[in-house]
């Protein structure tokens, strides 16, 4: 199941907004058992790690790390956010 992140806004920076987006995704996107959730960042103008961290926390708590995937993006703010969150996850 693919989620178009741009539907949550073109500028995604704060933790409260990220948490709200994660809870909304959890409520309204129901993948089939075993199906993956793919976050598609096409069309997003800017995203920070705080927003993404909140979304991933909600979704990964529900579906596990393996079923929640971030699709590659050419947007510099998205790639930099993914990089720092990966680093943070490695340290956990």
């Amino acid at each position, binding site marked *: 199941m693919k989620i178009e992140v741009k539907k949550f806004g073109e*500028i995604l*920076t*704060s933790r409260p907004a990220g948490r709200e987006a994660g809870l909304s995704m959890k409520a309204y996107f129901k993948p089939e058992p075993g199906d993956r959730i793919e976050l598609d960042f096409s069309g997003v103008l*800017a995203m*920070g790690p*705080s927003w993404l961290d909140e979304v991933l926390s909600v979704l990964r708590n529900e579906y596990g790390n393996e079923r929640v995937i971030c699709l590659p993006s050419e*947007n510099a703010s*998205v790639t*930099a956010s993914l990089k720092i969150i990966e680093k943070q996850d490695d*340290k956990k």
Partner: protein
Amino acid sequence: MKTETRAQILKIIQEKGKVRPIELRKSLNISAQMIHRHLRNLTERGIVEIKGAGRFTQYALAGVPDWEAVSSWINARTAPEGPESMVCETREVFTARLPHLKSFVRNGLPENILPLVIATAGEVGNNSFDHNLGQWRDVPGCWFESQVTGKQLWICIADRGQGIYHSLVKVHPELANEQVAINAAFETIISGRSPENRGNGLKYVKNNLSTTPGGGIACISGTGRVFYGEQGERCIVLLGKHFSNVRGTVTLMIWTCGDELNAAAPVPLTTGGLSRQILHKVRDVEEE
């Protein structure tokens, strides 16, 4: 002679920050026509910039942003009143103003850098709210100001909150002082919002401004200060000049626009005398 007059004009502008032509005329005792001729020449060469219009027109050095208003706001001992256009009292107001940064593409800010500029400013501004809710010293919210001068975009975000040390020390008592706390905030995954799993925002900010050519950042909180990136030192000199008693947090970021990415080093910010680089620029103008 012309070089000498222009050097005098630049020295006055540098000392005062901004001047009106009439002030120059009185100081140098030369005709209005001559003053305007020199100012036009310096403006065309990108050495000075025009601020304001009509009879309020002033001239300032290009590449030197004006932080008079924010420094008055942050340095005030008691709750100051800030202009609504700069002070974002709530997170919602701050978030609503982030898209304004898109307009700087018209000033040459590369489109591929714009996402980083917005996301980085977003992280810094949101920190003001994340770590000061219920902890503001007097005025809630943050100052959010952006300016383009000398082909560089400057963004200043400041708050009258509790500061980085007081935010962190409650859950990290091992942090000895404000300098140790600000270093930890920018260089390690750490947060005052324990037990929440946070603390990557300022690392993101530091990485973005350290790795982008022509970028830089400086931050002061209490007696703690840090700077990173090609232009970081320039940012901290400017902050040190304007902010004397930062009990909250002030962050200054610089992004370089367009062709200037490959241009020579910017005009250095000196506190006394006319910088050698400005004098060279004036001599170059004369020789052409």
